[in-house]
């Protein structure tokens, strides 16, 4: 089917979640994302799903946690202030390795701010947001079509890595209407999850937890999580690149801003300035590699965001500098010893070319 229908971004996202087999939604009202719960409160009961308007965002994310622990695809949606309240639950989900989708239709802040579009929650989304040493999988749609497509993708990645995923968008993407092609409706059967809590019939009882008190236990857990994040960086980076071959300047922008950039690139072209663009689609994992390689060829990079410079830091980290930078870290209560540091010093000192 290639029939196009006109849909609002928020509705496309909700339809994408349903197409992904998500039948459990828990949320609390906040502008500018209310179309999502309103649509799903009508849709889910019709298809055997569950919709609960929770007493708070704290309760919402914990209902997602409970449903996800039970083996199904579950989601919530909110905006900045509500997402702040969900950070506790997201940290626990990352810690107990539970999938689940959180949608942030960003609004301006800090505080109550307003409902104007922004990208001010980039740090909150890409740095984990809550306490502890973890990351969320973060996807940034730039069209109503992608609101649908990336909702499905987010559930796939979330299940693949047993890690919470977030769709980071803004009021423009949530509220505007565009033609969308909905993939031919096929029943997505979410994957079987052997770790899920279902009652222990026919197997040994199992449990999900985040508390690790024995010596070295938490550090081992953190290093396992790190392996997962490294695998994400290797296997599931998504970006869009345009006109990198012959341009003199490259713009890095995500979401709504990348659309505006396309017009600016055309205007520049009329003035004889050739501009290319890299649009990160996954904000975590960040498309470091393509930005690094591109910057070697095109050493003029313009970062445009609807905030005071947040993705800017990831772009800076991606661009190799002349200074050699090395990292050594011990998570989960491990403390670096002087011997550890001396080893690192020696490795660095003996590295070729320095």
């Amino acid at each position, binding site marked *: 089917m290639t029939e196009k229908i006109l849909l609002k971004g928020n509705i496309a996202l909700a339809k994408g979640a349903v197409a992904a087999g998500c039948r459990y939604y828990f949320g609390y009202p906040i502008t500018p994302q209310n179309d999502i719960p309103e649509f799903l409160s009508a849709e889910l009961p019709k298809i055997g799903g*569950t919709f*609960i308007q929770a007493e708070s965002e704290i309760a919402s994310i914990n209902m997602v946690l*409970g449903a*996800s622990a*039970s083996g199904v695809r579950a989601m919530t949606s909110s905006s900045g202030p509500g997402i702040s309240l969900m950070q506790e639950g997201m940290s626990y989900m990352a810690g107990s390795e539970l999938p689940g989708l959180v949608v942030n239709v960003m609004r301006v802040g800090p505080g109550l701010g307003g409902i104007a579009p922004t990208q001010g929650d980039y740090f909150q989304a890409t740095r984990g947001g809550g306490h502890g040493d973890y990351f969320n999988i973060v996807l940034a749609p730039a069209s109503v079509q992608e609101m649908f497509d990336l909702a499905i993708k987010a559930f796939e990645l979330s299940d693949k890595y047993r890690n919470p995923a977030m769709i980071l968008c803004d009021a423009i993407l949530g509220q505007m209407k565009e033609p969308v092609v909905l993939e031919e409706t096929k029943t997505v059967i979410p994957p079987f999850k052997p770790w899920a809590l279902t009652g*222990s019939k026919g197997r040994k009882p199992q449990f*999900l937890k985040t508390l690790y008190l024995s010596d070295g236990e938490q550090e081992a857990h953190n290093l396992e999580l790190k392996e997962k994040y490294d695998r994400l960086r290797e296997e599931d980076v998504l970006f869009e690149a345009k006109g990198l071959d012959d341009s003199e300047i490259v713009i890095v922008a995500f979401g709504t801003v990348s659309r505006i950039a396309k017009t600016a690139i055309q205007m520049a072209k009329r003035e004889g300035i050739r501009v290319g663009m890299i649009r990160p689609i996954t904000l975590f994992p960040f498309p470091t590699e393509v930005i690094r390689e591109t910057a070697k060829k095109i050493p003029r990079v313009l970062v445009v965001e609807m905030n005071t410079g947040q993705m800017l830091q990831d772009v800076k980290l991606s661009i190799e500098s002349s200074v050699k930078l090395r990292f050594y870290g011990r998570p989960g209560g491990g403390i670096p010893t002087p011997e550890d540091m001396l080893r690192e010093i020696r490795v660095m000192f003996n590295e070729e070319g320095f």
Partner: protein
Amino acid sequence: MKKVFSRPKSLIDRQTHFCPGCTHGTAHRLVADAIDHFGVQEETIGVSGVGCAVFMYDYFAIDAIEAPHGRAPAVATGIKRVHPKKIVFTYQGDGDLASIGTAETIHTANRGENITIIFINNTVYGMTGGQMAPTTLLGQKTTTTPYGRNFRNDGYPIRMAEMLATLEGVAYSTRVSMHNAKEVLKAKKAVRRAFEMQIEGMGLTFVELLSACPTNWRVKPLEGQKRVEEELIPYFPLGVFKERKGKDFL
């Protein structure tokens, strides 16, 4: 010889980390007894709160999850909505249920989620070292009420079983104690009734168990049981505050 007393099947044969005179062990037994009594060990999912109750999964031979502090009823809601036929219960202390998780407790009860809440009220924060709980009695000394709890500064001890009994979604709300054998037997009946009503789909069932925390009360184990009887019960009266008869609410 006839065996008249043994460890419930749903409890793992393992020494607990609980202090001498603590009644968590007894409460664990009562819950395991109810699970065994109704033959639902393989159908039950437990949700533990944060505090001394957190290690529930080390002692129960059932599927279990640890919830963020206070959020156990919300986590249990998510589980029960996915598995409406399974038996789902939370096991929470007073700080978890009546302080940081008050909103989750009240709204889960108000939605009438068909789960069982086991509430351990020992009037103190145990795991963090004896700070004031929402249930700490007036005049009671804790590490954060060194001069005794004073209502002008700290408010009053909160009576959860009575408060929850006012909510339409609650099917059963009771307070029992475990300070002597007779009361333990009554408590056992109450926990069984709560699970039974969940199996019957009656709505939320709530059992508050008055418990001793001799370590943080700074008393000897036996004096702890005495304090429950002489100081806790006069403020937290035992009894059934609500018991729904039949499914008249439907």
